């Protein structure tokens, strides 16, 4: 049987519609699941994303790109393919893309999480024949707690630091995680600052109804940082930028923090297990829920998950040599 989607060097391709999903290289038509750089790459002719993803994509790739936003759930026809976008619950505007050709349905999940997240649209389970699933945290050691508990942990740590008279430096990816973290901060504890890479996305989130406490840029600060919360992307962890926040306690909000070694290696004071990906049980629950007869895994060290699914009688395999993932979220 001809499948709606096939693998090409640039990525997943739909011959019936002549488009790619999250492609590399330069292609004419790119459907993009979300605005993270390992999915939304520059250089393509035309982009199609969800409505709420569109402003984020333009912030990342430039206002001049040719891009269009489509409402969640709305079916459009591209060539002989029927295509619709559905919330993936990963970050604001993140989508699973449903592709139907001749009655056969594929869903390409991008990155997703079924757990509730107040900073983005809730994950929607979409029935399909073939489900392309991420598997970043495809081991049972990864189990997330409710986000409220993590927000409480972060606020308690901040409070402790206020009492000890030191700044709190919290590393979180600039798009998605940073906003999720900021939303949960209790502004009665102290002033909140965010690195310049985080700010441009805030108005986009606010337009979609996500409310933040007052977030300042460090240059607006008094230079006295004790008691402040500073949210910054992990990319600046070792950079000079962090030096001004003398004596800061350093935390990192990421699913990788579930393992102590990951925290100790980075010499962090605290790790907060807050992830925008599905944990092990989330993966299993969604994979089962789609009713798909075939599961294809990408983005991660997916062999254990594939083997486990196979032992449970599910037709599961790695999509291609998509490589191991450990850094980005």
């Amino acid at each position, binding site marked *: 049987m001809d499948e709606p989607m096939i693998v090409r060097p640039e990525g997943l391709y739909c011959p019936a519609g002549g488009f790619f999903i999250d492609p590399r290289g330069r292609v004419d038509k790119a459907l993009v699941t979300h605005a993270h750089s390992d999915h939304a790459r520059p250089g393509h002719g035309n982009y199609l994303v969800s409505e709420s993803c569109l402003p984020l994509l333009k912030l990342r790739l430039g206002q001049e790109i040719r891009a269009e936003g489509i409402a969640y759930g709305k079916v459009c026809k591209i060539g002989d393919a029927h295509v619709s976008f559905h919330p993936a619950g990963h970050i604001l505007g993140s989508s699973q893309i449903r592709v139907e050709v001749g009655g056969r349905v594929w869903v390409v999940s991008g990155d997703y999480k079924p757990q509730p997240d107040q900073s983005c649209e809730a994950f929607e389970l979409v029935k399909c024949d073939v489900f392309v699933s991420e598997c970043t945290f495809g081991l*049972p*050691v990864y189990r997330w707690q409710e986000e409220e508990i993590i927000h409480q942990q972060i606020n308690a740590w901040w409070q402790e630091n206020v009492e000890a008279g030191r700044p709190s430096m919290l590393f979180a990816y600039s798009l998605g995680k940073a906003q999720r973290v900021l939303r949960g901060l209790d502004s009665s504890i102290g002033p909140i600052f965010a690195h310049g890479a985080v700010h441009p996305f805030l108005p986009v989130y606010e337009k979609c109804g996500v409310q933040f406490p007052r977030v300042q840029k460090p240059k607006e600060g008094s230079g006295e940082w004790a008691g402040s919360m500073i949210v910054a992307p992990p990319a600046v962890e070792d950079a000079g930028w962090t030096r001004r926040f003398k004596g800061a306690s350093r935390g990192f909000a990421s699913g990788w923090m579930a393992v102590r*070694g990951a925290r*100790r*290696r980075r*010499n962090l004071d605290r790790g907060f297990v807050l992830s925008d990906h599905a944990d092990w049980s989330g993966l299993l629950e969604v994979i089962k829920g789609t009713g798909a007869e075939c599961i294809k895994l990408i983005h991660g060290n997916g062999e254990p998950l594939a083997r486990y699914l196979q*032992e449970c009688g599910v037709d599961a395999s790695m999509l291609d040599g998509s*490589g191991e993932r*450990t850094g980005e979220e």
Partner: protein
Amino acid sequence: MARESVREKSRGEKMKGFSELFYDLDKMTKTGERIARMVNYFEQAPEKDASWASWFLAGNRIKGVVKTGELREWASQRSGWPVWLIDECYERVGDLAETLSLLIGGNKKAESISLSKVVEEILLPLAHADRSEKAEALRRAWHRLRPIDLLPFHKLLTGGFRIGVSRGNLCKALAEVGQVDPAIIAQRISGDWDPGIRKFEQIVGDERPEDSWCRPFPFCLASPLQEEPNSLGDLKDWWAEWKWDGIRCQFLNEENGGMLWTRGDESVGESFPELLNLSPHLPTGLAIDGEILAWGQEGMRPFSRLQKRLGRKEPGPSVLKKEPVRFMAYDLLKMEGVDMRTLPFLDRRKRLESMLAELPGGFPLQLSMPVESTDWEKLARQREESRDRGVEGLMLKRADSIYSSGRVKGDWYKWKVDPYVADMVVVGAQFGHGKRANIYSDYTLAVLDQQGEFVTVAKAYSGLSDAELKEVDRYVRKNITGKFGPVRSVRPGIVFEIAFEGARSSGRHKSGVALRFPRIQRWRQDKKPDEVDTLENLLGYAQMGERVREDGTKTDDAGNLLLF
């Protein structure tokens, strides 16, 4: 694992149990903070808990409680995940105790139980139970423990209890609790003792006569010499001797016999009866510092010979005859029950000499002789003989130095000969442990054989900076060519300069050579994989060592026996 009873409720807010202590110590990065946290715990905890906590933090463990294979099997039954999946998790997490904790999850409704209860009601019975009882006991234990208790519990269970608390810092904390000298604490918590019997008061209490029980003193350690030797001043103020390649030990002698303690606080006397047999000939109340060496008719033998005696308790007569040993004494710590450690080195040395002089000849106990020289340059030349002599270099001890506990810079230096080096290419990698979990930090290294093929000769996992480690990790991930259990084969591309202390022929290794202490000296980014060293070279180093062994009667220019 919380405190059993409330002693003084008013003291501090962190009045919590052992699990909380564990997590706090794990979180804290500053030494002062950690010591204060331990003091806080010891002051609050019930006595029994405090004794056990001291024992565990000192690095002791209850041995043979459970086999890790069994543990994985039971964790599999409990969690519902197949054993292979648990192994995959372990590979990712890099720590079995943590893996189990993440998989088991714990009982959120459980009440906290004290550390001594965990030990006495769970761990000790487990050690004596048979297989089926163990499975059941462990199932019950998991039900009794809160999520926060699991990691410390599994650490105690699997024996790898390390949370970055050095023995020295533990001693400082206990010393503060009891207001006694840390050196006394160090002596009280070293060696083999039963925290079920010894009261916490005996650990932190005031100094008593019985403190001179048969326990080793904390070893005085040397720092590596990292500057020009003449910066140490006048050579007359220094004592030089060979740095022996054996097992550092304290030989203690009391009325009821002798004991041998290693730096790892292991009592190894049972493996060396010929040394313990010296006991009746030595004065009691004695502690000497020295080195156990493999020693035959021809003189000193390489360290590998000593390994035939290690870990072998009560060796038979044929081993004793074939693999004799000798104690090379170099310091005197206690004499007739009097602590000598605060005397200047030369004084201690003199007393050691006169004590040994009274011994009849033919005993496997001798003095480490000085390496005498008129100036630093001449001494440096003598040091060049180290390899031929089978020693690691020179020890420099300041003539007036006291015997300190641990490493005190400026008193003792080790001036080792430069290590051998060879360029090797990374052909395999696996995840590290602890801090390096989930990062490809353990490397399999190869050199070229005569056919121009890579042949594996060593494994190394230390010596890179964090930034280099990250970069190599990135390379490995992109260049994996195969999977063999936890090891990934890697496309050759990264060349390291590997330092090692020696080589010997080995029938067990495919390459035919085994290296001693291989470690990464630096990353040779300028070298290509086909520019690495050859196996022939390494075999040459090995034969060099063996030549020394065979004709042991080598002499130096002055006609002195090199191996003596």
